[in-house]
């Protein structure tokens, strides 16, 4: 077998082939649902004449790809802003402030120009009304309601490592606990008794709820509405009254982009009212971040949701520690189904 040193390039030569170079096509790492990625990419190409292709990847997958293949993608579209901050901490992002960013509310822009937000939605409880009726309980309206013994083995939560909303739920509870990590872990250890399984992505949880396999799924409110409109008519959305987590879906230009101009053009475009008006037709049930963009009639009203104060930098910084404790203290405990 070859030794490792024999496989490494001689000094100074390894980087040559990955140096930035001009490229006609724009490569997008897209962290939204497939149909949204497709529609938005096609609309971008039609509007700007820039040829563009995407790969749909979850945020964690994007982070891994940036490690293994730097320079592969020009722009990262979608995924929570805190994940873009993590990418920036690892040196993968080229700060860029789009001229269109000034039209956004302050909470949708990074102070240092690392990212801008182009959609938003919140963590909610996605319940199957028929199943709740069978159990004789109402839709949960607080985090503590989820601990109700009546829900034993019939809650679905997305795995916080792979699904952003799983971590959003953790960080929301952590924020409500004033950052006391032990209390947060204690809450999720209790919740573990009621959890059937930790789904890989948030949307598969809403599917389980829609089907009645579980009574309640912790999910994005937009995903819950999407599943309901797709035909799971028993679904209802509720929120924890004491406050919930929310997502700012972000876009950022990646470092060493081969098509940096295209990446910036994409960022300008997705932050334009014309582009955000498209969401209603995709349909995406996440809300556009521009106040004057068209809202779909079924999109959950984000202003009516009580949100916790979301410290993005802290959300990014705490992620690794909270996930590690989730793995070691929560998920490895035997749960209700055993």
């Amino acid at each position, binding site marked *: *077998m*070859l030794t*490792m040193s*024999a*496989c*490494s*390039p*001689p000094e100074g030569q*390894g980087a040559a*082939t*990955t140096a930035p170079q001009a490229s006609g096509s724009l*490569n*997008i790492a897209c962290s939204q*649902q*497939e*149909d949204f990625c*497709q529609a938005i990419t096609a609309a971008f190409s039609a509007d700007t004449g820039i040829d563009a292709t*995407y*790969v749909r990847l*979850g945020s*964690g*997958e994007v*982070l*891994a*790809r940036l*490690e*293994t*293949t730097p320079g*592969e993608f020009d722009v990262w579209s979608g995924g929570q802003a805190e994940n873009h901050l993590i990418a920036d901490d690892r040196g993968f992002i080229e700060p860029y402030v789009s001229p269109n960013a000034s039209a956004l509310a302050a909470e949708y822009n990074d102070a240092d120009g690392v990212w801008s937000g182009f959609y938003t939605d919140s963590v909610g409880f996605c319940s199957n009304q028929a199943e709740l009726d069978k159990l004789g309980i109402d839709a949960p309206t607080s985090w503590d309601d989820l601990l109700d013994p009546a829900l034993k083995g019939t809650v679905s939560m997305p*795995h*916080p*490592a*792979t699904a952003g909303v799983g971590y959003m739920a953790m960080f929301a509870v952590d924020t409500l606990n004033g950052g006391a990590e032990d209390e947060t872990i204690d809450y999720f250890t209790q919740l573990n008794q009621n959890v*059937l*399984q930790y789904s*890989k*992505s948030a*949307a*598969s949880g*809403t*599917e389980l709820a*829609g*089907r*009645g396999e579980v009574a309640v799924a912790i999910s994005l409110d937009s*995903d819950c509405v999407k*599943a309901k409109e*797709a*035909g*799971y008519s028993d679904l209802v959305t509720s929120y924890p009254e004491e406050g919930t987590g929310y997502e700012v879906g972000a876009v950022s230009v990646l470092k060493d982009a*081969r098509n940096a101009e295209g990446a910036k053009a994409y960022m300008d475009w997705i932050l334009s009212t014309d582009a955000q008006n498209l969401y209603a037709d995709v349909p995406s049930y996440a809300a556009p971040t521009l106040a004057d963009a068209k809202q779909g009639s079924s999109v959950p009203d984000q202003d009516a949701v009580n949100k916790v104060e979301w410290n993005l930098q802290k959300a990014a910084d705490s992620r690794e520690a909270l*996930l590690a404790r989730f*793995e*070691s203290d929560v*998920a*490895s405990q*035997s*749960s*209700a*189904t*055993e």
Partner: protein
Amino acid sequence: MLAVVLVALTLLLGLPVSKLLAAGTSPAGLEAIGASFTTDVTTLTNSLVLGVLVGIVGTMIGLVSAFAQVFLVFPGKRLLHWLTLLPLISPPFAAATAVITLFGRRGIVSYHLFGLELDIYGLGGLVLVVSMTFTPLAYMNIRGMLENLDPSLFEASAALGSSEVRTIFRVMLPMIVPSLLTSFLILFVEGIADLANPLVLGGSFRVLASQIYFAIAGSGDIAAAAGIALVLLVPALLVFVIQKYWAGKKSVVTVTGKPTGRIRPMESLAVRIPVLTVVTAWMALVILVFGTILVGGFVSILGVNNSFTFEHYEFVWRLGSDAMRTTLTMTLVAAPIAAALAVCIAWLVVRHFQRFGRVLDFVGMLGSAIPGTVLGLGFALAYSQPTWLFGQQILPALAGGLAAGAGSVAIVMVFIARGIPTGQQASISSLKQINPQVDEAAISLGANQFTTFVRISIPLISPAIITAVTYAITKSMTTITAIIFITTPQTKVMTAQILDEVDAGRFGNAFAYCTVLIVMVLIILSITSLLLRRLNRSKRTTAS
């Protein structure tokens, strides 16, 4: 031939694995390894329990199906053959998703038909689904062996007054121990490496494969993932070594070159009734699951809103036609190469290098012993940058959007690496059945080694070659975890698209995708098996 095989194995496995070892033995990797044996040892034991159960259940069903196929006459025999192979073509997630729809807490069969609240989340459901997915491998392997048995042995047993049941237990089973062990090995490894099913219906039953996935896809923590992967590698390799040792001792030569008769069907009811009962139940289950996949593509949401619709197929057509073309092309490139390498390795192992052959065999098997997620990661690590050897660039970057062929080269390489092991095992079992005197006879008649290989060995092991090609095709068309880190914007793969649909909770689209994929594989397999059979026949004619 040896040189080609060595270079191929180094590129396909040596380089990615050494990169992985390096990552896995970094401090973070070692920490993850430590945790697997201390704080989180249940995950390791869960994986082992799942692997053993899948190995046993799958091998039993495979044995019964193969037995029925070779030794019984009954209506629906062709149907049984195709139905037994069907789960192999099932793309990941499809069977698990269908099983939830059928047997979940609100399943169509369990709840709506019988009013039961089954709990299929966890070990029970996993054993059912994973065994089902991989039973075809056992079936193909054991069937090849049964077909090669010398019928005169059965005649002798009958002439000496043994019943058919006694003949099965005293003559047949002992002779096919090698292929039973091989099946168990393959299924064990597939069982511990399977990612798709634990993600969909694992419940609280945690396994190493999904932990690796969470480590990478969640945190991008390559070192930890590689560490856990090394833990997973140990039992896989251990079972492999045990199997080699046992099977090596118990192998029996059955193809002697002397004339033999035809296998005569067994007629005793003591054999027919139990075998056909198991086979019927198995077929019913397969029909139910695949019927669900088929129907699920044509209704809005199966079990919730059963109105007929074409929208799923429209979606697949709109978003998937590109992926279909690419996947098909890459498969057609990879499958013949994988099969050829598998046969070459087997031939070198069995006929030429007794001692070194074990190492070769071992390395070839790594393609399936290494969990897909990890192999894919190894490829990403090894080939995202150009490959250097002693200061010379010998290869350009092969993986990722920046690479030659937009990353398709690396994907094809993964397909080949994943496609080799089963064909290799089948070819080795098959070659071991052939008495070396057959080769020696050819050589003493003036044939050189290459001619002997092409004219004698290959026709004799053609069932194994068909297994190799079949498996390489199906594996390429259905593999997901091994390529998830190296798909690129320009190279879309169908299974990755299906994963996205399951992820998004749009099971209808996923079912439609699966149906299209299954139909595509069936068409390719039919054409391949026709071609191979014709080839085989023409060789026999020239030989006679």
